[in-house]
């Protein structure tokens, strides 16, 4: 276990093993996202209440579900950075932040596009998921701007690790406080809140496939940017020089 753990901390080992994973992950991602997209757009029967807008939910649910994984990921990586000073964990955390911000933004955008036809409004303050996602987006931007403001690598690693852990706790607290706030601010017009509870089983099969694909995508883009980070930080190592010469 510990040997494996120590190995995982080595950028070189990660670079090599992730290079072997990438083709398989990419293949699986292209298959699952491609298959889910075609199925969702062409074959999925329209929902009896939402009509063809349930096609939006296939993407929205997958992206939203994946975007929730970023803060826990960054918090765990941050804890590893703070406790074991593992360089690799920090590289992952550093690159997860911008991707996570992209994910949160896309969740909000697709949610808005869905809400504009289903709820009849682009934005609904009384939905706790919308509001907490917005603040997750803000917190993510906070982590990114702290990272870019601190020059020293080691210092910014630990500062961002601490902020990511606090942010992760905060997302949960915000979620619950906004939910509470909602039960008192009952929306004037009774909008049906609730994502896919009216959709049939076929919808969920497609969505699960899409979730799988988007998770793979998250992994791939994270691995790609982490590999770049490794090449940049270890540019004086012999093995990096060899990679540059071979390619």
């Amino acid at each position, binding site marked *: 276990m510990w040997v494996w753990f120590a190995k995982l901390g080595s950028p070189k080992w990660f670079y090599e093993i992730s290079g072997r994973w990438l083709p398989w992950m990419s293949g699986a991602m292209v298959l699952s*996202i491609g298959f889910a*997209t075609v199925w969702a*757009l*062409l*074959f*999925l*029967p*329209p929902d009896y209440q939402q*009509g*063809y*807008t349930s*096609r*939006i939910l296939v*993407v*929205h649910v997958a*992206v939203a579900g994946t975007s929730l994984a970023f803060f826990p990921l960054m918090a765990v990586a941050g804890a590893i950075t703070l406790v074991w000073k593992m360089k690799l964990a920090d590289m992952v955390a550093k690159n997860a932040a911008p*991707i996570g911000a*992209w994910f949160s933004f*896309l969740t909000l*955008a*697709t949610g808005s*596009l*869905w809400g*504009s*036809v289903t709820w009849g409004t682009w934005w609904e303050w009384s939905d706790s998921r919308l509001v907490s996602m917005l603040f997750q987006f803000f917190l993510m931007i906070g982590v990114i701007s702290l990272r870019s403001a601190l020059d020293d690598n080691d210092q910014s690693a630990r500062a961002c690790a601490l902020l990511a852990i606090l942010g992760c706790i905060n997302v949960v607290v915000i979620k619950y406080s906004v939910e509470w706030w909602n039960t008192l601010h009952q929306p004037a017009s009774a909008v049906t809140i609730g994502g896919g509870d009216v959709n049939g*089983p*076929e919808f969920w*099969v497609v969505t699960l496939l899409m979730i799988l694909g988007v998770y793979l*995508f998250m992994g*791939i*883009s994270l691995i*790609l*940017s982490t*590999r*770049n980070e490794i*090449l*940049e930080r270890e*540019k004086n190592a012999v093995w*990096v*020089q060899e*990679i*540059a*010469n071979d*390619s």
Partner: protein
Amino acid sequence: MLSTIQFSSFSDFIDMGGYAFNVWAVYGLFAIFLVANLWLPLKKRKSIIRNLKRARKGQLQDQ
């Protein structure tokens, strides 16, 4: 459980039961998002390797 194609014509498919803008905007954004987040790191990787090679060449010339 597998359904058949839901649309009788191509224009029906584009129309998406009247929700063309919302459905296609979501899939368009999703596609841009996927391509951008894969293309940008790959592009960056190329420039990193180019820089590494240039630095190496400079070192060799110095020696």
